[in-house]
């Protein structure tokens, strides 16, 4: 469900960028980073994105999602470890609880890939 909201936010952000461009370029790919320690399902995002961009300036644009695993840092052992989501979050070596999360909380729009449009007769709706 909330993937729909997230997608709305994504589309608005991209639209802002698009409208700030003097020559409306053709957006080809949107790169996202989605951590595994979030409530977002990459598949759900893909699905919502496709549904919500139909017949808009983003129709057919590819959503490239980089899945980032959860990585925590143990202060006692001074090392990173990979908790097993759903099973075990404490340090496998010393059993300290999960204090610092290094990676896995990301929910980010990284960058856009676009190409310039040379054909002046091409009109862009939306």
């Amino acid at each position, binding site marked *: *469900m*909330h993937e729909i*909201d*997230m997608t709305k*936010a*994504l589309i*608005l*952000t*991209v639209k802002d*960028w698009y409208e700030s461009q003097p020559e409306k*370029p053709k957006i*080809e790919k949107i790169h*996202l980073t989605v951590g595994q*320690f*979030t*409530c*977002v399902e990459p598949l759900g995002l893909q699905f919502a994105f496709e549904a919500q961009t139909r017949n808009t300036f983003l129709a057919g644009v590819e959503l490239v999602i980089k899945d980032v695993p959860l990585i925590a840092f143990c202060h006692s052992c001074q090392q990173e470890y990979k908790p097993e*989501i*759903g*099973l*075990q*979050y*404490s340090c496998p070596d010393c059993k300290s*609880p*999960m*204090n610092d*999360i290094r990676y896995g909380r990301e*929910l*980010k*729009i*990284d*960058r*856009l*890939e*676009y*190409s*310039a449009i040379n054909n002046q007769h091409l009109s862009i709706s939306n």
Partner: protein
Amino acid sequence: MHQTFDAAIELNLLHANQEGADHNRQHFDKWGITCLNIMSSPGAGKTVLLEQTLKALKAKLNIAVIEGDMTTQLDADRLRKYNVPVIPINTGRSCHLDSKMVAGGIHILEHQYQPQNLDLVLVENVGNLVCPAEFEVGEHGKVALLSVTEGEDKPLKYPVMFREADCLLITKTDLAPYLDIDLDRITFNIKQINPQVTIIPLSAKTGEGLETWLDWVQSVICIPSGTKAKHKEQQKETKI
């Protein structure tokens, strides 16, 4: 020739919600209100907790409730009996409250009540253990409830909520003897995800933990002039 370019965006997907939440928090801060976001899966006991909190604290503190549950009128009606402002939010089919919805509630507070007289706003979120924790609404603290009937493994399965909580209430402890459940195990599972969280076992039926919860609420309230909450903390410390 097909040449592609890159444009860096570097923006959080929740950016707009976050900005809205910061805006809401500014309103609360201006009025001297502490806001707590109450979250749990459906039926863990949020409304009962609010009822007992209102009953115990409404003489001491000025409290309002923003009621975001989908069965909204039912819960709101239960809470109106305590003669405090109860603002229902129509969440539609959303699985969480977001900062925009709560802004609507704040708007009503501003125009129909005197928010500067309030100390505490309790927000009952939509019953859902997954995403409400990701959508800040402008709260100063997050309270999560987990009832003993839900099982020991829920913190492991829905870790984000348990990671984000400032206070975790293990509710319905009166039912524990009838279930094959180990309270220590629940606590252990929560602590491995969030070692900082305050855990309070609670029963609305027997009253177990209620005083501890009420103390916690009062300890997080920032009363600009008075130091009620701080005073309480000191009392506790000197006892130990």
